[in-house]
């Protein structure tokens, strides 16, 4: 029900590094005998000392990484209620099909007529993502969400430049993810922050006061980072469009509205998606992802080149490089194709009915869980949450217990903690996103763990301060790691 937590039990585990396992002369590799005449690199180019890599047997390697996997928590291990991350189940069939040699063994420089299946896949996935978001065309080059943001902002800049003035500022809400302001800076714009109102929504009056013709655009998630639907989004869009600015949709929270509402219909001009959130491609311990960017028709000319094209007459696909207004290339090849194969499997496996159900169940799960825990962990804002909610551990503060202590106690109780201390505008924030793939029993068990932690915070706070005590390592000295960086063997 809760998954198997990462536990320390039995005799102390073998925590040696590969370097510490290394013995001169031991090896895992094998290679055929060289069957052509040997040659040497000229002296000045030659490496004098072999690199300091470990010398280990294949058994050593297999035991080492198997052990490491056993002290790591994943979606396959258990519930992962990380707000803003959509840690849903990653279907196994997506892994199976991505490993087909017809996808996995394609060289990126192959001529187009030898990769018609890959191009068809990208073309159909593009059509589906544009339908889901209400956009016209998309690029698959961005390999992650932040890269998608920067790509979208460069498109924004190219559009305004084409119209005679690149403008200088981009508006983001104070509840936004850190990648938003970082991407704004990298795209050459200055950040202007708009506050949230008492409901946790963009303060429309404040926004209207700060927009002028030097504003290039606004970046927003909807539902926003507090899990709330921006009900005045049409007013926001009107305020931006009135001064010729563009609306950028950060797709981090797209899971909530699939099949129910579309960014394009809300007035957004640019959308990025995170396939590793919404479309269940595995997070890989922090990557790879894929961050497709879709735009409406007037921004299409600025998309990164090339884009996939279909010749209707011949039925053949090709790469269209003839894009004079394109912002250029944002990835070395065509983006994270292997990740996109998995996203395709997810989208077409679910279909229109399944995708809509995904959003519905995700929102149902979040609302149910919010109801279960809100007496101990009140919601930060009163509105009805969508696919995630932000609660606060503030009531525990007077007993000296912080959100991080609750998070660490949840580890001992068998769960990965939620996102804590984000968004920044909520004191002692605990941001919880259960996703649609969790059962009622799991949600109940997690709610019980939350309530137990809250109770213990009053009765036995050292359980929270000391936590975790069951894991292979306990709380780590992060200050020391930063003060005396030891970054390699």
């Amino acid at each position, binding site marked *: 029900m809760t998954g198997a937590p990462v536990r320390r039990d039995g005799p102390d585990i073998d925590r040696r590094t590969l370097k510490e396992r290394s013995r001169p002369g031991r090896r895992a590799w094998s290679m055929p005998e060289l069957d052509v005449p040997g040659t040497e690199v000229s002296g000045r180019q030659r490496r004098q000392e072999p690199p300091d890599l470990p010398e280990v047997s294949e058994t050593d390697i297999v035991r080492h990484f198997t052990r490491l996997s056993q002290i790591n928590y994943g979606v396959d291990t258990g519930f992962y209620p990380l707000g803003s991350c959509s840690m849903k189940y990653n279907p196994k069939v997506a892994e199976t099909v991505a490993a087909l040699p017809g996808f996995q063994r394609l060289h990126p420089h192959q001529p187009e007529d030898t990769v018609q299946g890959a191009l068809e896949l990208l073309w159909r996935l593009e059509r589906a993502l544009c339908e889901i978001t209400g956009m016209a065309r998309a690029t698959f080059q961005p390999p992650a969400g932040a890269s998608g943001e920067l790509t979208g902002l460069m498109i924004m800049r190219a559009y305004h430049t084409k119209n005679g003035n690149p403008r200088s500022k981009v508006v983001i809400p104070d509840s936004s993810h850190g990648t938003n302001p970082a991407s704004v800076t990298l795209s050459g714009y200055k950040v202007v922050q708009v506050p949230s109102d008492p409901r946790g929504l963009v303060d429309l009056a404040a926004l209207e006061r700060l927009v002028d013709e030097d504003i290039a655009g606004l970046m927003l998630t909807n539902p926003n980072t507090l899990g709330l639907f921006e009900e005045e989004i049409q007013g926001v869009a009107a305020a931006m469009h009135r001064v010729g600015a563009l609306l950028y949709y950060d797709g981090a929270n797209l899971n909530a509205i699939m099949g129910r509402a579309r960014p394009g219909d809300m007035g957004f001009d640019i959308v990025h998606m995170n396939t590793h959130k919404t479309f269940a491609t595995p997070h890989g311990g922090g990557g790879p992802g894929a961050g497709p960017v879709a735009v409406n028709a007037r921004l299409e000319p600025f998309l990164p080149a090339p884009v996939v094209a279909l010749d209707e007459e011949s039925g053949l696909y090709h790469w269209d490089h003839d894009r004079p207004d394109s912002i250029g290339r944002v990835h070395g090849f065509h983006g994270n194709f292997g990740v996109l194969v998995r996203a395709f499997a997810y989208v077409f496996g679910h279909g229109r009915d399944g995708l809509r159900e995904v959003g519905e169940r995700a929102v149902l799960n979040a609302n149910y869980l919010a109801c279960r825990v809100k007496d101990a962990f009140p919601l930060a804002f009163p509105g009805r949450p*969508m696919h995630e909610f932000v609660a606060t551990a503030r009531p525990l503060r007077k007993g000296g217990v912080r959100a991080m202590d609750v998070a660490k106690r949840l580890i001992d109780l068998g769960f990965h903690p939620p996102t804590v201390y984000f968004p920044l505008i909520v004191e002692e924030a605990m941001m919880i996103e259960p996703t649609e793939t969790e059962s009622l029993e799991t949600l109940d068990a997690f709610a019980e763990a939350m309530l137990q932690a809250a109770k213990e915070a009053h009765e036995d706070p050292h359980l929270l301060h000391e936590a975790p005590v069951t894991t292979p390592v306990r709380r780590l000295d992060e200050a020391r790691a930063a003060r005396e960086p030891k970054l390699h063997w």
Partner: protein
Amino acid sequence: MRFAPHTDDDVRAMLAACSLSSIDELFSHIPPKLRLDRELAIPEGLSEMELVSEMRRLAARNRHADELMCFAGGGAYDHYVPAAVWALAGRSELYTSYTPYQPELSQGVLQSLFEYQSMITALTGLEVSNASLYDGPTALVEAAHMSTGATGRTRILLSEAVDRRYVQTLRTYGAGEHFTVDTIPAPGGVTAVPDVGGDVAAVVVQHPNFYGNLEPTAAVFDAARAAGARAIQVFDPLSLGILAPPGELGADIAVGEGQGLGNHLSYGGPYLGLIAARPADLRRMPGRIVGETVDVDGRRGFVLTLQAREQHIRREKATSNICTNQTLMAVASTVYLAWLGPHGLAELGRQCLAKSRYAADRISDLTPAELMWPGAEFFKEFAVRTETPPRQVQRKLLDAGFLVGPAVGDEGLLVSVTERRTREEIDRLVKAFGEALS
């Protein structure tokens, strides 16, 4: 396919617990005008069996490197992927995990990344590596940002023998007026030692370069250092068992494409951006870095560290916007490098070197084709000058079952020979080359 586990009874019970009467009520605060009043124009869902059939159909419309003999290169290479690599990197505790922000539950990924950083510093001879970037070209963009930050200058000098894709990517990201890019000529297929002015933030050389040739890297980097510019080397990690490491050649920052380190060709991604630098640039490094520390009981453990550089702390003042990176590819590369070890990597380098030399000699001896740069020393890739347009030659070789390329402008064709190719396969390629040109 469905992965939401709710029964009808579950849904009813959960709605009731929230005092709601229907699913629609959960969405009732979306303004009516914004509600999608139709179904998405996407086909109905498929069963798993139907989906697998459809994916197989699509895959079968591609010709791939198990069916064609792969001598293609230009930034992606058919190196052998040992069975252990994905048997381990493919363990689902690793690949279904999130970014290791909760270190007590993430020691597997964190220690793997620490070992990855250790191996990248060992390979490059530079002291600091991060935990991965997207790919080679975007790693160069990050190195350019580091250089402008370090020097306060904005001009990047880049050899024309650097892969065009790197140049294109650099120009895209420079367009926000962060830096300008000028090229250094490469007559004879290797970079000329440039005049480096006082306005230059960085000098970029790819070694081995786009044509496969080894560069007079140390001389170019001396010129960079004399002018106070950062020296950036685009390197091939598979070459570093036998070629002198970037740190020894005078590079301040080394960036590279890590695809060959156990990652599949996969039509161009997911690959792996490598970056390593000197300690002076540590606080300018982009992205995640893992450090060793101890827990409250004094046990060794690993954490994400120096996060004050990163977007989730520094927001608009971060060194980069990168968040999601290519961790899983870095883990795979760690398994791969452990499997090869120092001697396997050197043997792999010797095989690439000897086999590509053999192929180049055979093509120039036995066919009408010539090498573009007959005197040049190369590692695993070389450029063949063709009288007929290179894409026509490429097409004829494809018809004969060989993948080669990419083309070098309108005059040449790259041929890449990894450790996987046998003498017999090379001889067959040479024969096909002769026929394609006759």
